[in-house]
């Protein structure tokens, strides 16, 4: 990017647009977010440490991060299969499937939460077959996983799909004409091209799942030490008017979000470089 700050700007509105952007962003996002850290820093180190390492809170990290990782991994595999099917196969109802993939973006999380609970409860459409097999989904950690898979589903599909669409068929043709079998072509030629997109999709799904609240609380059962997610710990501290405790846990989550955001930005930059046509 060329920078010429000394030249007069050709297009109008620089001061107005940037000024408004910065003011608005500061008022709505940055200053309130800073409140968390300022509040947290007013805690003594010991109090902060106790709040963020209480056994119930530790258990919630394990559940939130563990299930978010697992859900993102499941979505990476099935997201790739879905994206592959949408780009490369013809089948009836394809347009509808393509449109509905975004449902988790559009459906309010509370609705998703009660719908999934109804499905997987002991008397639900799926629960009635799963419970006799000893698989208890609703009101337990598995329920958390199911909800997190639901809300993370579109991320991998929507990051991989455009890359698959732009994939030059010549690459596959070249590999095949050089004697590679279909699996070898996928493994050595297609997968390396998809890899940045897959990782980006994974990270996006993971980041979303870690902070998710609405779709999870209905199906999780919220049993202390077993199926309480971290955002719920913040809520329960708030309900006890323990603002300091809530703030401490929130600051841990915020740091995790920032780190994930950085990772995602890095991945996207890598992806852009990978897919930048060199011709």
């Amino acid at each position: 990017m060329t920078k010429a700050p000394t030249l007069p700007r050709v297009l109008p509105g620089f001061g107005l647009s940037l000024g408004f952007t910065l003011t608005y962003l500061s008022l709505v996002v940055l200053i309130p977010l800073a409140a968390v850290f300022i509040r947290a820093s007013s805690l003594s180190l010991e109090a902060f440490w106790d709040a963020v390492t209480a056994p119930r809170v530790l258990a919630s990290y394990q559940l939130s991060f563990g299930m978010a990782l697992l859900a993102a991994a499941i979505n990476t595999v099935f997201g790739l299969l879905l994206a592959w099917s949408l780009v490369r196969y013809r089948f009836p109802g394809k347009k509808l499937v393509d449109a509905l993939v975004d449902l988790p973006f559009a459906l309010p999380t509370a609705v998703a939460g009660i719908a999934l609970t109804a499905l997987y409860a002991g008397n639900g459409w799926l629960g009635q077959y799963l419970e006799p097999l000893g698989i208890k989904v609703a009101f337990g950690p598995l329920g958390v996983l199911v909800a997190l898979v639901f809300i993370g589903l579109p991320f991998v599909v929507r990051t991989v799909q455009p890359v698959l669409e732009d994939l030059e068929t010549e690459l596959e043709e070249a590999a095949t004409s050089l004697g590679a079998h279909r699996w070898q072509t996928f493994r050595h030629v297609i997968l390396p091209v998809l890899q940045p997109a897959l990782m980006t999709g994974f990270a996006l799904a993971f980041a979303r799942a870690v902070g998710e609240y609405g779709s999870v609380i209905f199906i999780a059962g919220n049993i202390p030490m077993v199926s309480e997610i971290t955002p719920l710990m913040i809520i329960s501290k708030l309900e006890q008017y323990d603002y300091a405790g809530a703030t401490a846990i929130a600051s841990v989550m915020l740091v995790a979000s920032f780190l994930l955001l950085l990772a995602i930005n890095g991945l996207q930059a890598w992806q852009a470089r990978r897919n930048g046509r060199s011709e």
Partner: protein
Amino acid sequence: MSIQVQNIHKAFGDFIALDNLTLDFPSGELVALLGPSGCGKTTLLRVIAGLEQADSGRVLLDGDDASDTHVRERQVGFVFQHYALFRHMTVFDNVAFGLRMKPRGIRPSEAEIKRKVHELLQLVQLDWLADRFPAQLSGGQRQRIALARALAVEPRVLLLDEPFGALDAKVRKELRRWLRRLHDELHITSIFVTHDQEEALEVADRVVLMNHGRVEQIGSPAEVYQQPATPFVYGFLGAANRFEGQSSAGGIAIGKATLTTGQHVQHGEVIAFVRPHELDIVRQEFGHGIPARVSRVLTLGALTRVELEGRDDVAGQHFDVELPASHPLAGSLITGEPVRLQPRSVRVFANPETAGAA
């Protein structure tokens, strides 16, 4: 290793890409498939490779029917127009790809692969680039790496799709000569597709001219240039002035004017072609020849090109005449001057558009 295609037909929806085509490519030759955009040449190349399936017809490699052989097993080397190099692999890994994909039993050892890849890189004179990635190479270097990669699996035939299409003019010229030398060294049966007549005439042993999914003419570069078989070939290879008229005694009648041909001409509606350097300008307004008017005189180095506009019966038509810059006319013609045009050599064809109706 010879290639034969027999009665190949291929359509994309309503568009007929290959119209019941039959062709022989003798062993060891470098053949150019030449034609305008959409003439079916790339489709033919892809059908031979097995990348595209023909609707009907057969492809014979060395006399064996290969129509049902998978691309993977056909042992054809294919060089793509945009090279299709694997971006995430080094030059070395790109060239080694075909060897490494071989089944375990017949896969060469890593040491053997290394030796072979370096040998190929030396052949294309790019051994020093082995550790680079494709993005770090120039267009001409990528083209040669793509060729080395295709040669690594010891293909029985080499197919190149517009091999110089994506390169700038200077690199293109160099690579053309280089490809010709490489072929003389390897003698592998090769077909390349091009829309550039100069390229085809300069590089190939034999030129196949295609149009609308059919073959117009096959021959050596000299044959197709000097004895074009159809109006299409004449018009496609080199500049040409085109005249349409009726055959008459002593030439072709175009309205009241006559294009003298000095040869007997088939009866009926005809098309005549005259190369710009075989058309003479006569400085007179009336008389024999085609009436025209000088519209521009351009000096292009050793050549002078005169652009003319038709008068009277050929009004609205444009003609080009090329003269040596030293020719007395070159310096003296005046813009707007009425002249007559007389050909030294004419090539006449029955007019295909009206032949059927007559």
